């Protein structure tokens, strides 16, 4: 197992608001990790720094041993938490778009996943339902043969059946030695697919453990334990 993502004393402030207050984290290959925390706990900030969409205020993050840059970007398949694709594009154009941008994009894998969704090839993104659009974006992301998958809220805002589809798409398609990080506050839905849970609270990591260890030690589900730790 290799360390694929490592943060050391990572801090990020927006003006005088501290979003990350010194994160130390090591994530290994072959693991599915849940980045779990309520809204505003710093999940998206951490992911964006890893993708080099934000610069840290202090500290550093290493992706497969290197500072974020063009090389790390080619290794990370990133799913943002909001719509990010041009909505006039048709399915066919989206596939082409990804193929042009990413050398590791596997068109056949994408087609295979798409076939079960029954989306017509000439349908524009704009005409898709919210659930279908989220599935479409996830399929494009998971069709990359990446080292690291950073999925920011992949199941928020879709119905339970779509959530199930999305989680199965993730476990059925990630590269075996890749690192998958899923950020969410919907713990109950994801906990059976996670190897490890990272609890993020107000910009700090309050827990990082294997999920089965949490169940064993607390006699609770990760969801129940989360509710206890983050009780308002």
């Amino acid at each position, binding site marked *: 197992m290799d360390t694929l993502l490592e943060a050391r004393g990572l801090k990020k402030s927006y003006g005088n608001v501290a979003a990350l207050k010194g994160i130390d984290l090591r994530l290994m290959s*072959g693991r599915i990790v849940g980045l779990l925390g309520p809204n505003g706990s710093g999940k998206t900030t951490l992911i964006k720094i890893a993708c080099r969409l934000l610069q840290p205020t202090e500290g550093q993050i290493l992706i497969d041993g290197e500072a974020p840059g063009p090389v790390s970007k080619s290794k990370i398949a990133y799913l943002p938490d909001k719509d990010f694709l041009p909505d006039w594009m048709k399915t066919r154009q989206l596939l082409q778009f990804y193929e042009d941008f990413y050398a590791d994009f596997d068109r056949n894998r994408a087609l295979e996943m798409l076939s079960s969704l029954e989306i017509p090839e000439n349908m524009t993104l704009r005409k898709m339902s919210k659930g279908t659009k989220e599935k479409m974006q996830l399929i494009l992301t998971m069709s990359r043969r990446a080292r690291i998958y950073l999925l920011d809220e992949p199941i928020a805002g879709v119905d339970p059946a779509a959530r199930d589809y999305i989680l199965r798409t993730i*476990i*059925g398609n990630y590269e075996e030695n890749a690192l998958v990080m899923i950020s969410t506050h919907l713990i109950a839905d994801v906990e*059976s697919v996670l190897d490890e849970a990272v609890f993020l609270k107000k910009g700090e990591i309050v827990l990082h453990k294997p999920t*089965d260890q949490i*169940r064993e030690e607390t006699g609770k589900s990760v969801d129940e334990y989360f509710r206890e730790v983050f009780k308002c």
Partner: protein
Amino acid sequence: MEWRFKEGIPIYQQIISELKLRLLNGTYPPGSRIPAVRELALEAGVNPNTMQRALLELERDDLLASVRTSGRFATEDEEKLSKLRRTLSESCIEEMTGRLRTLGLTDKEIMDAVNRYLTRGAGEAES
């Protein structure tokens, strides 16, 4: 079949229980091939690493055997299987007895109740 997991018990342990049941109830007959890790993980909706961990544990107990390049197979060892059947049924009985005792039944009453149930059940099956 839909897999359901209880709260507060490690998932790999619950997978092990389910797979043991499958070895006994004919889903995976002796000597049959067990689906691949990822396939099983998808079916159960769990992480492939967790499924792998459960399968390795069953291998260590010689209930499954891994044959290089051709996959994993259910044991054909009758002795192992009947021992497993005994263990699992004992834990069912233990649980039932425990519950009946908390209801205030004596062991004699439990025996009678079970006998009555079995006789009635057999009678219903015949009619």
